[in-house]
């Protein structure tokens, strides 16, 4: 063993430790009975030959004395103490709006299934917002009172289905898209109803698309969103732009379908409307309904977002009433 080298190393190490470690820690590191570095050196002395002992013994002793004195001189108060048990505050990163975060998560799911993400204008014509969705004039759902009109025939889109008709008109199958988007209705504001809200729409048109494909897609999607243990219920539901229509509910997690105040005693919570795209819609959009079939689904995003992030009022979600921690 090269004792000279060892002494040098210990001295260098000690200099660094003095600025980092506390008084007790440093004492233990060098002088503890079992693991102390100086203790270790002293333990080596008896193993040396007589001549070496004569030379190195005093050197080791003087190093030991020197370090001990230096340790006593350490002024604890001047030292920068780092307590690693204290949690640091968070960094300078910002957060996404809960709706964007949710949309991204959904998009990621659908991208994996070959869907593109598209968008369309918010200022729409009746043609795309109503007519091509098989909603003729005078249809109760097209009541002027329920939509925000800018000019006669021009309004803010009332659903993302308007983007569906645009995509179907501007593209030929195969088509697979999802549409997250802002929608508008002429409503009086309440905690659950807003004139401004978000919808998420999905559209598939191709050869041989069936209602079985729709149910599979919705099942996978809900498992992704709510976990594999979610219980789904599919039922017939009418929407003018589809036939056959399909409503999708998830079983209430609180009562397991028995009915409680959370699910308004229905046992299930409605999440989504869907169906096979109406024959007339495909036709009006320039797609041959005898060759191609397809499905579409649409859901309100806000209730889902509010549930996930524990927001009780839609006016807070989009009215500037939320901040991030």
């Amino acid at each position: 063993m090269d004792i000279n080298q060892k002494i040098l190393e210990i001295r260098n190490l000690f200099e660094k430790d003095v600025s980092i470690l506390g008084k007790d820690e440093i004492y233990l590191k060098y002088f503890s009975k079992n693991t102390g570095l100086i203790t270790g050196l002293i333990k080596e002395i008896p193993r040396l030959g007589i001549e070496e002992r004569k030379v190195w013994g005093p050197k080791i002793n003087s190093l030991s004395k020197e370090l001990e004195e230096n340790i006593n001189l350490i002024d604890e108060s001047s030292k920068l103490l780092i307590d690693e048990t204290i949690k640091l505050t968070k960094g300078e990163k910002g957060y996404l709006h809960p709706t964007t975060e949710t949309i991204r998560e959904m998009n990621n799911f659908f991208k994996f299934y070959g869907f593109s993400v598209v968008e369309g204008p918010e200022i729409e014509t009746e043609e795309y917002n109503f007519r091509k969705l098989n909603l003729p004039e005078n249809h109760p759902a097209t009541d002027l009172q329920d939509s925000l009109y800018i000019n006669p025939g021009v309004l803010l889109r009332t659903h993302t289905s308007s983007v569906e008709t645009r995509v179907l008109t501007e593209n030929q199958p195969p088509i697979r898209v999802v549409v997250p988007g802002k929608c508008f209705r002429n409503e009086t504001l309440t905690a659950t109803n807003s004139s401004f809200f978000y919808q998420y729409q999905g559209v598939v048109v191709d050869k041989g698309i069936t209602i079985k494909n729709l149910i599979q897609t919705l099942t996978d999607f809900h498992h992704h969103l709510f976990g594999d243990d979610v219980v789904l219920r599919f039922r017939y539901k009418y929407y003018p732009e589809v036939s056959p229509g399909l409503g999708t509910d998830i079983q209430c997690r609180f009562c397991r379908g028995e009915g409680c105040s959370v699910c308004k005693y229905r046992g299930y919570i409605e999440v989504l409307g869907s169906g096979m795209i109406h024959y007339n819609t495909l036709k009006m959009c320039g797609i041959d309904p005898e060759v191609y079939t397809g499905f579409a689904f649409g859901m309100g995003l806000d209730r889902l977002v509010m549930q996930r992030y524990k927001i009780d009022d839609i006016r807070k979600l989009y009215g500037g009433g939320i901040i991030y921690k």
Partner: protein
Amino acid sequence: MIIPLVWLKDYIHTSKSPKELAKAFTEIGLMLDKPIYGEVLDLEHRMDRADWLSIIGCARDIAAFEDLKLHFPKLISQKLKKTEELFIHIKSDKVNRFRTRVIKDVKVGESPKFIQDRLAAYGLPVINNIVDITNYVMVEMGQPLHAQDIDKFEKKEIVLRETAENETIQTLDSSLMKLKEGTLVLSENGNPICIGGIVGGLRTGVTENTTNIILDSGNYDQASIRRTSREVGIRNETVLRSEKFLSPELVDLAIIRATDLILEHCGGEAFENDDFEKEKYHPRIMTLHKERLDLISGENYYFDQAEKILEALEYEIIENKDNKIKVQVPFFRTDVEVEDDLVADVIRIYGYSKIKPQPINNYPPTDITPATLKFEAKITDLLISSGFHEHITDPIVKFDGVESRIAFLNSVNSEKDSLRLSIKETLQNVLKSYSKHGKSEIKIFEIGNVYSKEGENLIEEKVVGIMYESGDNQKNSEYIRRVIDLILSNLNIAFVLKTSSKHISIFSNERELGYFNGNFAELKINDLIKLTSFKSYVVTEFENLSKEDLTFVSHIDSQNGEIIEYAKNVSPLVAKIEFLGEFIDGSNRKVTFRFYTAYPNESKKIREEIMGNTSKRFNVTFIS
């Protein structure tokens, strides 16, 4: 639709519990909407199925689903002797059908118990046998009807017409009501006695002294009913039905059934009176192809059940051969438009819970996600990583008279009747919330549309709005300026700034891509996309650049950025240019910048070129 089970069981015999029936109704399209109280189901009604606004209609579908027999009430008084007691004049094209009957010598009194029980379970008040029977038949068959006391008519006529200005009516359930011009009414001797398809009037109403009645049942323009109902503020059981697409043929069913019940329970003698029909009814014939059913359902076994299902739903089977079923659509199914609706009926009654899911097998199509969306995400991520919080705010604001602002024609809310011109208008609401929570340094942004109009042109444009608020104006503008640098340098967009009275505009390639002012900046996403270009940030070799500083005396503040930007492009040998600072020297504003070049030997020439061209172009003086 409210379904008292005691009433439902008049038409189907089932021992199923309310809960089991609710489950079945839900699966076929009539979702249980409210908790079950006792023996009454409250089911959600979708507007297309006008026939589901009747107990018999709901019973028909549940019978088909549960494979039960439907016991339809026997109709007796199909044809009667004609009388011309009251003349009917139709003077409005909002009337599709108006059929009347006269019943003489009725005894008004209490209704039989079964009617009282059913109306009470449904939630309708019990009044007298005549009125109760019209209500009973309305709920049973889904067609509103109406009885009036003939002896209270001053003239023996009913005119269906649209009101002139300032007409009024005394309704059964309220005081004097003023009617808007163009309201469809039944009138007698010039005065409205009833708002067609909505509510009856007090004057000709049936009372305990009534002995002769006229029974009418009509079908009117649905949109007009909805409009009038809103105008007069009445939404009763009659309106709920009249405003839907009821078949004009349903009138017959209702008036015959009501006559039968009146004759049985109130006595008297019945006669046909006038019957107006705008258009003759033609039954619709449709064909269900096995091929189509297989295509939509994805299975080949549905077709075997199709005839039985369609028959149970009262489609009349005309022919079933060669994998095609030709049917006559029942008159009450006004919702059936295309063959897929027959497909829907078959799959629905077969049971949605029996559909087996199957993944899509086709190849996924080409990705058509527009570049804008990916680009937006990139800007979002850039800002998030710089500590900005994303917010989304409702773009609807109060109209302030600004000409370029888009306003709505019909908003119900006077505080929200137009669209934002800038994100700032709505994003600043978030600022207040942060301040309220005691946050002192607020960094927020939103990506969304702003809206404006130029003449007839309506413009929606996607922008990113960025806000920094520290409470110190100087600090705010410096920070915002830095964020703009951050974004544009990340996107590799060269830009110059130009000051105007409103704000500082950001220009690149002669295009104004945004502006900033105080604590806020707004950039147009579409312009950013057009201008952005790829930039390699990788350095592989050591670049030995030599540098030189230049100082000039500026005259106009807002030009300096432009001057430096210009200087950069004077010589291709300039590798980069850096702004060093500006200082005031007496009355002069001096600006210093530094250029770098990889050609030190050409340094002097470059320097002269920059000084020469720049001073000529901008009329500034360089200091040596």
